């Protein structure tokens, strides 16, 4: 088990290296300039932007810039943002709690919707409940988050004036009103993300349960006279959830990516909106930092999925 873990982690190193090479090259080849704002201002001499480029090493050849970045990265120095001249690690750490809170809440919501609904629909396929649940799930994951986000804003902010649509991190006040304000502003982004994810997972859980429900051992369990509750919870769900766990774990990093749009719509100051701003400003060190975090997340969650798999299904062993 331990040697398996070490081997997997060692294997991750070259893939991260490969990812960083590709990212850096793509960014270097993409058009744009972090100081283009200065260049288009006629009252600032062009030499100012040129001097800044030289100082920040933007005029060096791509491979040289990459090795500088890599060397610093290996020392734990993530570099600093061209736009804000702040360390990239500080910027990311500032944003991480918000992202984790919003995404964590939405994933919980998604699981809380997907598992019960999916299981119930799977156990009673083609019943009225299943029909309704399946149709809603289809609608839910067909609608892109930017659309549902705007619809929610129109309904709850513009027309009903119930919820704010600008997410704020530091709000004055304390005690219950403050918590209520936090919850209120998080409702819409969490709903948008959670229901989108939940809809997709519902279909998956249902399909997985359907597969298991017809197996002989379920019939055996029923024949033994076990109560329906025990059959479902102990025998069906446990086996049906194995592929679901993999899916959830593997989708985690994608969710971080998908949250970018939602973060932009509701102005949630998470990692996603940091990435967008950095891309728009051609702020290479920040883009590298954030995408690198995403890459690490993918690898880590892959690993977690594999480990969970073994725990859920003891027939799988690590070699």
């Amino acid at each position, binding site marked *: 088990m331990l040697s398996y873990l070490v081997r997997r982690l060692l294997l991750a190193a070259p893939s991260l290296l490969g990812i960083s090479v590709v990212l850096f090259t793509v960014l270097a080849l993409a058009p744009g300039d972090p100081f283009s704002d200065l260049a288009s201002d*006629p009252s600032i001499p062009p030499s100012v932007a040129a001097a800044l480029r030289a100082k920040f090493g933007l005029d060096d050849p791509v491979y040289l810039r990459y090795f500088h970045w890599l060397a610093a990265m290996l020392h734990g120095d993530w570099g600093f943002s061209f736009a804000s001249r702040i360390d990239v690690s500080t910027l990311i750490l500032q944003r991480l709690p918000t992202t984790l809170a919003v995404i964590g809440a939405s994933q919980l919501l998604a699981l809380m919707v997907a598992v019960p609904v999916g299981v119930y629909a799977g156990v009673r396929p083609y019943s009225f409940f299943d029909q309704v649940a399946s149709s809603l799930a289809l609608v839910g994951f067909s609608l892109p988050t930017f659309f549902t986000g705007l619809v929610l804003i129109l309904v709850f902010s513009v027309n009903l004036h119930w919820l704010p*649509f600008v997410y704020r991190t530091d709000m004055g006040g304390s005690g219950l009103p403050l918590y209520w304000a936090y919850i209120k502003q998080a409702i819409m982004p969490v709903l948008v993300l959670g229901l989108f994810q939940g809809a997709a997972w519902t279909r998956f859980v249902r399909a997985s349960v359907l597969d298991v429900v017809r197996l002989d051992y379920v019939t055996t369990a029923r024949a033994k006279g076990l109560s329906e509750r025990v059959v479902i919870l102990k025998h069906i769900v446990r086996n049906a959830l194995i592929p679901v766990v993999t899916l959830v774990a593997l989708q985690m990093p994608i969710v971080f990516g998908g949250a970018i749009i939602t973060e932009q719509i509701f*102005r949630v100051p998470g990692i996603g909106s940091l990435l967008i701003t950095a891309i728009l400003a051609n702020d290479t060190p920040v883009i590298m930092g954030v995408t690198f975090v995403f890459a690490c997340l993918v690898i880590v969650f892959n690993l977690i999925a594999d480990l969970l798999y073994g725990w859920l299904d003891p027939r799988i062993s690590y070699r």
Partner: protein
Amino acid sequence: MIDERQLRQRIEQVRTGERSRRSFLREMMVLGLSAPFAAQMLAHSGVAMAAGEVPYPPTKAGGGGTLKLLWWQGPTLLNPHFAVGTKDQDGSRIFYEPLAAWDPDGNLVPILAAEVPSVEAGTVDKDLMWVVWKLKPGVKWHDGTPLTADDCVFNWQYASDPATAATTIGSYKDIKVSKVDDLTIKVEFQKATPFWADAFVSVRGMIIPKHLFDQYKGANSREAPTNLSPVGTGPYLYVDFKPGDLVRGKLNPNYHMPNRPYFDAIEMKGGGDAVSAARAVLQTGEYDFAWNMQVEDELLKRLEDGGKGHVQIFDGGSIEHIQLNNTDPNKDVDGERSSIKTKHPFLTDPAVRQAFNLLVDKASVEKFIYGRTGKATANFVNNPPRFTSKDTSFEFNVEKAKDLLDKAGWKPGGDGIRAKDGISLKVVYQTSINAPRQKNQEIVKQACQKAGIAVEIKAVPASVYFSSDVGNPDTYTKFYTDIQMYTTTMNQPDPGDFMRQFLISEVASKDNKWQGRNIIRWQNADYDALYHASEHETDPVKRAAMFIQMNDMVIKDVAVIPVVYRPSVAAVSSKLHVRLSGWDSYIGDLHNWYADA
């Protein structure tokens, strides 16, 4: 009846700002004096006739709650000398102040200066070689240290040191600043400088404290802790900053202007897009003020119907214009197209240029595309009014254009496209990808087709078009097409820097990595001579006349075709009272902002 001593006392109160000018005038009127006479009394007592003075009713500082600003691109740093875009200048301006700011009409208003320097007061050299700034006494930094001339001198040293990598270096590198006494500095220029109000003024003039940045001048400028937690002289004290997301401040109880600021706290939220920012102010009222409303006017009008706020439009120096290439974009000379060594096959013909000028339907562009956010104009310099030409006009007339082309020998061929000596009038018309611009291209293209000119439309992503990427052929500075269109901005209320873009020495070329500003590669020796004369002209009236003449030369020769000038647009809550200047930061007048209770 009021006696002379009391009267002088009141005038003094107006001068020091304890009493508003308006309340003084009202009181005098009650006493039976006419308003102009009372105003005259103030003028003779040394109070400048503040142009368009804004009323400021609050009688004490604070009590206004939180002022919530929405910037759809949030500030990413709070050191004004590192500011890359206006968003950073705006964020810094909450805490830092310049010696003087620009009002909406392009006049200087003292902030940290005791008065605006002038030749009359002997604080501006009559040969324009130096200017003396006197600081307002009693101003304190947020940490209680007094502001002195040393701070100003330090700002010059800090910004002009290339190792600091300040973006303001352009305003400070060619001047010399010295301390005269604790509250006086002298700025010396290398040559006569008619526009002396650049360093220490407005967005590039914000002063940072010497005692906190002294250790961090030069290569280690990035490490200064104060970069992230500003200590300035402004109306609000620093509370919190998250780059790109949020800036928070609270009332500065020791602010140097009486009864100000009105708000107890300020919050500048960043992120999102312009349309939803407009929505948050105009429709839901979640925010009090949103910046830079690049939103179609029709949509703005609909949102205004929400009744929570209104759109405020104010003039600045932005002009959307069409450029005609003087060089040949299709001929390659030494690895460079649009080389100054070539001549455009037909755009150098005055008749063709005039025809293009007649084919741009500016009135329709204003009416159908920009609405209130773009006014049709014949001039390249549209503001401030003292630099605006009255001798120019524009018209849209396809018949006249056809006639001109006929007379010049450009006859329609079999395909309906005019040609002469085997050269057809076919142009490539490029601009950035942006919905209003594509509509504008369409309007011009249709008119040109009617007149027998073929137009091929090209739209380049803005991130490519406006980049300074030397390797990319589609940047606006390379101008590898026949005509192109974009907005350029005169950032200061003076055309001195702005009109450099027509000088022969500024021609963009491979040699200067296309950093030259004469993108149209226009060459006119008379223009150059006039421009260089203006650099030494000390009489402001004559100098303004010269710039008007330069504008007219550019327009008469159809070097460029101005389409619409684009004022700045902000969304303002209906309770909030603000004065916005197109020549300064959106919040350049923040200390005077107040709201109805």
